[in-house]
């Protein structure tokens, strides 16, 4: 019997299993929520419909910056008898649950390599012209299409509270070097990088008295209704450019209204109101601590079914995080431009990239510890993509971009493998299509159409 109950006939079961203090309110999916979800779900019907008693699919992106090291990343051995490289060695305990994808060319355009690397990484599009002046390139703006996580969210979010959850760790300034997830063209999604604020906004329903919550929701619906009408009214009086901005704001207000009419349905006993220890979120040396908190919050948001699509953005492209806890005092980006024959710098970069691999391993361990019904774990029903805006830091190359897929994707992903597509010149858009397919979407292309030749063969 599935732990995930969305059937209105079983409120009692949901009630007894819910652990949160005010779990009584977190019961039934509202009629309005279901009504909202249906129209688009029909048109985007997953290719392999999941039985109603199966746990939902989840999708997670983990980003780490500044490229990696070719020699220390490359695997040896065959598809299943692979030997993990030094950088990937922390994934050894999880080798049965990963797929290393090698040999794709990560696409991107507009702006400089870091800019269009992070902007194209998940969108498979180039950046529009815009105000952010990069290095040795005309100024660029935001990406010109939605990111793969948002396409997936559109299909699998169902009636969850949050369509998706963007988390980050010291993501820095609001510009196109620091945004990877896009709701649509020109609509970057800023990652929340303050664990305390994530706790307050994402987990409200778990720690608020249900009567207070109900009153607040009804009131906020009235307020947003009034506010939304003003956006509509003003929009009609503006010129085209300004109108686009205001319409995007209106869409954001409407998304909040949807959240307000959606009940949190907690069916997993592992869902608990999380604890968030105080931390200086911006201090360089808190980077690991903030990241650990964000990882815990991400896992709990999935366990509580607050969202089914999440991302964790470690720093940003051109990250200057100083890995002082690993004995490294230089900024990451400075190091990433050092020569391949500069042995001390290469050793430091290996340490940094290995540390990020450890963070993926930690995320996987935490997901694997959460039962998800039918004898599965959260990790079994999740697809994780670990990606980077570059392949190499010192050349800005995106040839042979480093991708790791992890988790079972509900059985869609055949894991425990190392796949090399080297020499085929395939664009990474093909991987993005395959991710959609793994999540049950029937899409055959994603992003810029001339950067995509269809899904990768042999992956699923």
């Amino acid at each position, binding site marked *: 019997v599935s732990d995930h109950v969305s059937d209105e006939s079983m409120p009692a079961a949901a009630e007894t299993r819910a652990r949160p203090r005010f779990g009584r309110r977190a019961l039934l999916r509202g009629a309005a929520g279901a009504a909202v979800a249906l129209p688009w779900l029909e048109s985007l019907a997953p290719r392999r419909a999941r039985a109603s008693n199966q746990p939902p699919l989840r999708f997670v992106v983990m980003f780490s910056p500044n490229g990696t090291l070719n020699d220390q990343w490359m695997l040896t051995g065959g598809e299943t008898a692979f030997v993990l490289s030094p950088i990937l060695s922390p994934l050894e305990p999880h080798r049965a649950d990963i797929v290393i994808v090698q040999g794709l060319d990560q696409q991107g355009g507009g702006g400089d390599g870091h800019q269009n690397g992070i902007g194209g990484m998940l969108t498979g599009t180039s950046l529009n012209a815009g105000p952010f002046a990069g290095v040795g390139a005309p100024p660029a703006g935001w990406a010109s299409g939605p990111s793969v996580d948002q396409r997936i969210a559109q299909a699998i979010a169902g009636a969850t509270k949050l369509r998706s959850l963007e988390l980050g760790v010291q993501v820095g300034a609001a510009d196109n070097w620091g945004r990877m997830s896009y709701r649509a063209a020109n609509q970057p999604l800023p990652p929340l990088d303050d664990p305390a604020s994530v706790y307050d906004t994402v987990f409200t329903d778990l720690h608020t008295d249900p009567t207070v919550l109900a009153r607040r929701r009804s009131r906020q619906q009235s307020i947003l209704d*009034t506010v939304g009408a003003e956006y509509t009214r003003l929009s009609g009086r503006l010129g085209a450019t300004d109108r686009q901005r*205001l319409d995007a704001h209106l869409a954001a207000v409407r998304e909040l209204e949807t959240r307000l009419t959606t009940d949190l349905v907690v069916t997993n006993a592992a869902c608990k109101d999380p604890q968030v220890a105080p931390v200086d979120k911006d201090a*360089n040396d808190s980077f690991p601590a903030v990241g650990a908190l964000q990882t815990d919050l991400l896992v709990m948001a999935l366990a509580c079914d607050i969202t089914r699509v999440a991302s964790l953005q470690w720093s940003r492209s051109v990250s200057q995080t100083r890995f002082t806890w690993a004995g490294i005092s230089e*900024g990451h980006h400075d190091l990433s431009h050092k020569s391949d024959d500069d042995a001390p710098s290469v050793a430091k970069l290996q340490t940094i990239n290995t540390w990020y691999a450890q963070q993926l391993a930690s995320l996987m361990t935490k997901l694997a510890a959460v039962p998800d019904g039918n004898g599965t774990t959260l990790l079994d029903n999740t697809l994780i993509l670990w990606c980077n805006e570059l392949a190499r830091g010192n050349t800005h190359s995106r040839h042979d971009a480093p991708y790791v897929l992890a988790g079972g994707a509900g059985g869609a992903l055949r894991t425990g493998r190392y796949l090399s597509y080297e020499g085929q010149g395939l664009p990474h858009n093909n991987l993005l299509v395959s991710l959609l397919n793994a999540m049950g979407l029937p899409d055959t292309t994603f992003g810029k159409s001339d950067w995509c030749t269809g899904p990768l063969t042999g992956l699923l």
Partner: protein
Amino acid sequence: VSAAARARLLSDVRRKRVSSLATARSGFPLAVALLVVGACSGGGGAKPGGVGGDLCAASAPGQPPPGTAPLRRLTRFEYGRALADLVGADPSVSAGLPPDEETLGFDDIADAYSVSALHAQSYLDVAEKVAADFVSRADQRAAVAGCDPLAGDAACAARFVTVFGLRAWRRPLDADEQAAMAALYQATDTPGTGDGLSAVVAAMLQSPQFLYRPEPGTPGAMTAQPLDGYALATRLSFLVLGRQPDAALLDDAASGRLDDESGLMAAADRLLADPRAAEVFAHFATEWWELEPLSTLDKDRSLYRLWTDGTPGAMAAETQAFLTDAWQGTPTLRTLLSAPATFVDADLAAFYGLPAPPGTGFQRVALDPARAAGLLTQGAFLATHAHADQTSPVLRGKFVRARLFCTPPPPPPPTLVVRPPTVDPRKSTRERFAEHTADPFCAGCHTQMDPIGFAFEHYDATGRWRDVDGSQPVDATGALTGTDVDGPLDGVVDLAGRLAGSPEVAACAATQWFRYALGRSEALPAESCALSALSAALTAPGGDFRQLVRATVRLPAFRTRAPEVQP
């Protein structure tokens, strides 16, 4: 178009072509090297400033229309202050919003805005919180309309909506808007709770009429249009104070007093006399001087043992006090660049190795004029323009070029494999950077930056004075080239004197202000005259940043609404 403007345009085109070629050829370092050297050895590239003379006379026919007027959104800086004025909130509530997009170094460039559900959620959360706090305080809610709107008098509640709406939206509400607020009040209120009132306040604070600065105008108009009094009042108040127009300014708007230049300037002068105008000046200068990273700055504490968790905050306070004092006293470019004084408390004095100031808190102290030069020798600038474990003549020199001369050197080729100096305590900074000039690949650009940066070498990566670098005496000699104040340099005071006397630096300062003040980049050559007028406000006898603000108010781009550019 004048010869100067034409030369500038050509130079721009040349620079762009070079950089796009460099990108296209990035796989071929030799080609890149030649192009980059070519780009840098050709001089400083585009110069700031504008044309002058008759071309810019206000009555000159064919005066180009002002540039675009994008819809402005309140920055976090402005939003916090607006909530403080409207509902008595702590301005730091704005920290609950996503950060403002930053480009050109500023937080208010409209082209860069984006909006997401996170933005909308944050606006909702903050508005709900401050509205509830506000309504819970009887004195505050009664002060708005002169009666307590919760006392059960419907007329009082309606008057509250009228008065509060005017202040929040910076213009009177029309009948539809008034009715929408009344309906919201009805839908959300339980008598005696204040729920309806706080819902109205929260809704007004999430309205585009509050969060943005819409200005009435005809979409698609082909010519510049005059602004009504309320739109002018709003522009003026945010320009000078970074805040909502106050009641007196709204009265001016209603009575038409802002419609002629003398009335507008009288209002500007009243706002300029408000001590809070210093906050805008300090905010602008902090962004212009790239001091924002200070808030999260750290240094290698094994090398810099005096650096503590409290040092960055103290340096920020020092610079804030210095800028406030400059604004209230002599807000000239020369003060910013060369004043031999600063503000320290006992801890920061100890950090710098200065005698403790009298009294508590931050006090003005005179510094050795042979060592000190305004912002250029303050920790806030020196520490943000350095690495964690060493100084950076490159970052400091690049700052001077990019932010003070507005001639940023071309960036390094993106695929550069850097072999920069590792810290060898036996070597001086200068020895470690020698490769930059020895290697022609690097020299083309680095000779524009490093020799300026070397002038700062008496200040270490934390902003402390030093006489010894590595095992050798500091050598702070350098050179300025490709500017209007070229020549050899010896130390930062020498550099500061040159910068303070440079018309190019004044023109650049005016350009930076223009971008911040109008929330966009300048349109050249159409706005050369505007830039000239601003530059003159800094360099004319008696010129300073106050005069710069006044000159901004006089610009056609400020006083009229530009025709819309179709995307």
